[in-house]
């Protein structure tokens, strides 16, 4: 059981992620109403938000240092912030600004951060081999850093999943594979994509530990990840963790979600991992009403500042698109 400080830090982290994404969501719809035009507004393009999945990212990232590598997916904000990415640079990148993490060239699905050894990819499951490579480098260089690879349950049926985990297991590399099972791959439910109920059972195919976190609970994730990270750090090889989590929003913003019932969406809101966790902290007397309010206020202030930084930053020079193909 994590100590109080850890519990409170996890709460703060989840809150700032949620508020950040809510701000991005608002900005995303600027210029897209009344008529939705994906190319319009301050934040164009596809937008995949992770609301509901914060426990998976935060419960894992609590065990990491900036020098540990994290590879994420098309839905990367929660993992990025949990691993310590600068919120201003992240916001500015999403706004396509010169001050962005990648100076506007990457965008929300292609975030690369040297400071936190973070990367992501819009190609399903293809971030997993990259994580194996980071861990390989750490071993070669004698570093006790590890790599974490986040991916969705839909990614678990892609060949890269199989190749990456087999390699990591074979070479005894320090990788923690974290499957965020939000039950959906866009409109395709897990039951229509995966021949087994739990991807954690697939660990048997590689002779590594497979752990199922059956509830979208940050503490349960924290406990499971703690063991996996420790194992990886002491050279014990990879683990596969599957977290049953919830995608509260559409696959991307603007998704009509005709494939999900109103009821399903309502129940999801009910069991929002952040709300539930906060309630528990309150009940256990670890978080007073005022403290809770302060957490939300401070996070909101940080978010507002980041968004303001992004808005007020200049766009990169158009011609800069033509340079930087080669180092």
């Amino acid at each position, binding site marked *: 059981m994590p100590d109080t400080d850890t519990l409170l830090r996890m709460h703060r982290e989840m809150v700032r992620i949620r508020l950040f994404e809510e701000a991005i969501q608002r900005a995303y719809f600027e210029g897209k109403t009344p*008529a*939705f*035009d*994906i*190319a*319009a507004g301050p934040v*164009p*393009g*596809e937008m995949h938000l992770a609301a509901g999945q914060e426990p998976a990212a935060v419960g894992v990232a609590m065990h990491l240092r900036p020098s540990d590598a994290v590879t994420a997916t098309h839905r990367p904000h929660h993992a990025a912030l949990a691993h310590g990415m600068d919120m201003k640079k992240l916001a500015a*990148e999403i706004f*396509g*600004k010169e001050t*962005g993490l*990648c100076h*506007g*060239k*990457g*965008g*929300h*699905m*292609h975030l690369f951060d040297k400071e936190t050894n973070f990367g992501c*990819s*819009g*190609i*399903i*499951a*293809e971030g997993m081999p990259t994580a194996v490579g980071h861990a390989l480098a750490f071993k070669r260089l004698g570093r006790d850093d590890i790599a974490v690879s986040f991916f969705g349950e*839909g*990614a678990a*049926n*892609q*060949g*890269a999943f199989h190749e990456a985990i087999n390699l990591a297991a074979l070479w005894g590399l320090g990788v923690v594979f974290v499957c965020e099972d939000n039950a959906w*791959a*866009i*409109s*395709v439910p897990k039951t*229509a*994509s*995966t021949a087994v109920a739990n991807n954690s059972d697939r660990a048997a195919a590689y002779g590594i530990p497979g752990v199922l976190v059956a509830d979208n609970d940050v503490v349960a994730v924290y406990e499971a990840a703690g063991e996996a990270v420790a194992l990886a750090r002491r050279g014990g090889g990879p683990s596969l963790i599957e977290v049953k989590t919830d995608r509260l929003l559409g696959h991307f913003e*603007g998704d009509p979600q*005709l*494939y999900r019932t109103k009821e399903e969406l309502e129940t999801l809101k009910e069991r929002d991992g952040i709300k539930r966790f906060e309630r528990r902290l309150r009940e256990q007397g670890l978080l007073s009403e005022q403290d809770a309010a302060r957490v939300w206020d401070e996070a909101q202030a940080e978010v507002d500042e980041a968004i303001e930084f992004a808005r007020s930053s200049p*766009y*990169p*020079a*158009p*011609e*800069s*698109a*033509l340079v*930087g*193909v080669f180092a």
Partner: protein
Amino acid sequence: MATVETATRLLTTSKAISEAIAQEMERDETVLVMGEDIGVYGGIFGATEGLLATFGPERVMDTPISETGFIGAAVGAALSGLRPIAELMFVDFFGVCMDQIYNHMAKIHYESGGELRVPVVITTAVGGGYSDGAQHSQTLWGLFAHLPGMKIVIPSTPYDAKGLMVSAIRDDNPVLYFFHKGIMGLGWMTPNPRATGPVPEEPYAVPIGKADVKREGRDATIVTVSLMVHRALDAAETLSGEGIEVEVLDLRSLVPLDREAIVESVKKTRRLVVVDEDYRSFGMSGEVITTVVEGAFDYLDAPPVRVAYPDVPIPYSRPLEQHCLPNADTIAAAVRGLVAG
């Protein structure tokens, strides 16, 4: 509206495509569709809208995210008597399944000495311009056209889209069918008037391998495909006001490539501009120019010019991407330079 419909029925490109597929599925029991989100969702770009409701999950199969698996399955199913249509959601993802596409789907007919046929249609979305970044905005048709064994079909209008899909499904060869997100007429994309147009209700075939003159002209020929046909027509409109009459040739397919049509048009206009949303080098623009050099060298008044996507990955930020994309202005400028020079 009803009257308009009976007169000339207007359809978006995506509706034209899904109608063609539906009509072919009606006609031929062996046609089936598979891919990610092509069922309930109707395809992320609407190319399969309504099919699940009409034909059921046995013939409209949502798949896991296993492109090698289901495209390979399409190849196997074709070898055993079906005519599968498999959707690769974005062409940018080809790298996870290319072996099935070009080492199997494209080669088995030839390797078998003609004994086997592989009637598979792969539909895939291409193109950028809406800030989707380096992994979701490419066209890549030049890459596929380099590899023998697949027909490469690229419609630019609702009418062609339906007729070419009908031909693709009826073709006994593998066909890659590239639809540009910007020509589909989707409610959530930047509006494009040319993405809606007259489409006959009854099934009809547009032959694969015949280029189409989308606008006649005498002063220069613009050869292009897909959304850039629309941009070229805009440029032609502008230039016409300046007394420059441009011919816009829509290739409609890269394989087979209608080299005769290209050569004939340039013999007439004596000037060539190739417009390509795909990467500039080692692709379509070079092949079209070489086709003219091989077929109409002595007719050229000036060296052909290309307006293409530069050889850089596609940046996310709007001003950066827009700087790279060919548009009506850059196309018009290229034509002016050619006609003047």
